[in-house]
């Protein structure tokens, strides 16, 4: 303690008590917690842990309850308040019957396929673009971009309002772009740089998905791809692309360029340099980004709601669809489905917490 004890022989009891209380909040050494302080801190942390963990607990015990136990009001402790029963879980393994849980299997498979494929595609495409933006200089002409946007508007109007076939419109638009870019585009001297392209890609994240999803629905309807895995995979890839580009760009930019230069002096091509030298060096960042994107695609709801009906239905859609219906909510069944839906992500979060939070930090801390 820094203060010098007061010389008074008999201090007032109240003050003495105050000092006694205060001792609890004086740290013994700098950089250590005082006893009172640590009690307060632990108290708050335990309180918050309870708030975080209780929903999981409630979900788990609800899945073990009979309907009677659920409707009789809350009961908290298995074997004390109620007898745990595996009936809801047994339904899950009962594939023969047309039980509500047997129907979970297809959405589960769909979710796995969609999450993994879209993550792989997204990380591949995004990492390549991020690397290119970190290493190669791009200078697209502003004029070409303008021409392109104008043609896109014209195409959209032609397809939507005048009912021109999508493929024909796209082909004509593409051909016109090539022609115009070679003629008109040349007269515009101004161009945009890598930073602008990067910003453009990242800023796509601001776009609320609901803005884009109706035309995406119509496009897939035109080509007959509604309710397929591929449609959802492609859409998820684009939705998560900004995150990958953003995180990986910072990561690639922080890798020293010397190795790549020497590889190129040895005659390696860009692609080879990327896959054989840069990717292994950026493994940690790639792993973190992959996990993050995987979880985001696993949890996604809105896009799947629009693009899937039965064949490609994902787990979140299944769960949301079970919320209601003629039999009312089957709380125990839903608890089981939600548990099997969140177990993979919880397991990943527990095992790979460091990696995932690294992915989150890559972007946010660097700004």
């Amino acid at each position: 303690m820094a203060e010098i004890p007061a010389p008074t022989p008999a201090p007032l009891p109240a003050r003495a008590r105050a000092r006694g209380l205060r001792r609890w909040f004086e740290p013994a050494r700098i950089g250590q917690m005082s006893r009172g302080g640590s009690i307060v801190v632990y108290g708050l942390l335990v309180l918050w842990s309870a708030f975080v963990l209780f929903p999981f607990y409630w979900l788990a015990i609800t899945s073990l309850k009979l309907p009677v136990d659920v409707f009789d009001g809350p009961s908290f402790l298995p074997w004390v308040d109620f007898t745990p029963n595996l009936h809801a879980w047994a339904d899950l393994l009962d594939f023969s019957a047309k039980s509500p849980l047997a129907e979970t299997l297809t959405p589960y498979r769909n979710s796995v396929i969609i999450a993994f494929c879209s993550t792989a595609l997204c990380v591949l495409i995004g990492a390549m673009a991020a690397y290119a933006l970190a290493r190669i200089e791009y200078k697209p002409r502003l004029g070409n971009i303008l021409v392109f946007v104008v043609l896109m508007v014209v195409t959209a109007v032609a397809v939507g309002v005048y009912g021109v076939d999508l493929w024909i419109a796209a082909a004509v638009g593409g051909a016109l772009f090539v022609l115009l870019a070679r003629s008109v585009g040349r007269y515009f001297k101004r161009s945009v740089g890598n930073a602008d392209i990067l910003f453009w890609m990242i800023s796509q994240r601001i776009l609320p998905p609901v803005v884009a999803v109706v035309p995406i629905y119509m496009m897939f309807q035109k080509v007959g791809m509604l309710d397929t895995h591929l449609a959802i995979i492609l859409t998820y890839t684009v939705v998560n692309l900004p995150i990958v580009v953003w995180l990986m760009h910072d990561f690639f930019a922080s890798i020293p360029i010397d190795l790549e230069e020497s590889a190129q002096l040895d005659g390696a091509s860009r692609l080879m340099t990327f896959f054989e030298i840069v990717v292994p060096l950026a493994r940690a960042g790639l792993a973190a980004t992959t996990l993050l994107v995987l979880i985001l695609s696993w949890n996604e709801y809105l896009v799947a709601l629009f693009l899937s009906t039965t064949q490609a239905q994902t787990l979140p859609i299944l769960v949301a669809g079970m919320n209601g219906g003629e039999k009312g909510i089957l709380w125990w069944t839903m608890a089981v489905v939600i548990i099997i839906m969140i177990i993979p992500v919880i397991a990943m979060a527990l095992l790979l917490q460091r990696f995932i939070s690294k992915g989150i930090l890559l972007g946010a801390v660097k700004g």
Partner: protein
Amino acid sequence: MATRDGTIGGRRPGEDPAAAVVTTAALRSGRLAEWFDRQARTLFIMPAVVMILIFSIFPLIATFILSLSRVRLRGGGYTMRYVGARNYEKQIFGSEQWHFLGTFEEVSVLGWVVTAAGAGLLAWWLVKYLRGRSGRVSVVGTIGRLITASVLFGLTFMFAATLFSGTRLGTLGVTLFYVVVGCGIQFLIGLGLAVLCAQPIRGRTFFRVVFFLPMMVTPIGIGFTFRMMADTGKGPFAPIWQWIGLGDFAWAVNPWTARAFIIVGDSWQWIPFIFVVLLAALENVPRDLVEAGHVDGAGGWQIFREITWPQIVPVAATVMLIRVIEGFKLVDLPNMMTGGGPGIATESMTLHSFFAWRALDPAQSAAISYLLLFVTVVLCVSYFMLVVRKRAAVHG
């Protein structure tokens, strides 16, 4: 990584890692390799650009066109007719105004006071900028601030005419309520938890892992779990409800309790994100600065305000930007917990747009989503330019 090697194999058939040297030589001499090398610039970036153009920019344009037309569905196909801004008019001034902006009746005295206060603040802010005390005045800066100020004034008036006049909020107000109140609460609690976890105590790793968990959980699952827990008859807090005499009280019937419950669920999920990022920022604060503060006799609060806070402000501003962007997209929780009810009390704009789509009115749905885009972009860009960038400039 195995997947990466697999991709290489898929990209250029005939290559496997063991024979990489041989293939390198073969490719180097081959025409294919030369072509690849020349096209590498394009090959690297084109997939991403094309994907974004097809699935993001084209839909963006198409939605805008859609929002300017009337769509009639006819057995499998549809017809579109240009109607100008009529869909937007309907949402802002017309028959759908109650749904989007809220029920407008007589503006109360409190409403006028709030409007005047808002207008005064915005005017003061603009004048302060135009006098050039805080830096250079530019044309772009002035126009940007005028846009920000007019949108903020419009929103202030909307709240004054609904919330402060005792009528119902529309989906825009509800969305902003989720974003402002929800994100505010989440920031405060997330910061508090990060500060607690940055203390030198035992078991930090445990708390860190536990606090991190909710972020990973599927929002739909969270929605259901919280709905289950909030049930006043079967939920875990039923005894408490009954004890305080609210046994037959249904929280989903009162607009404000329903909104509060959605914010609780949203916070449960998103506080971890803010916590994780701010904790990392706190741990990056140089230790000697804090210790110097201790030696100089500064108290805990003083050290936080004078030393720690300025160091973490840039990160805090960025993390809140990300959070706010995601906050505007909220849809799963309201849909799962209340279905947007009671009435439209918990309907976010995304959900509003989805309901319009489900009611086979894609044009209205497009108009609503464009209005959401407009509000999101104006507010997020303003926040970015006025807060994030400034902080980054000041603190390096």
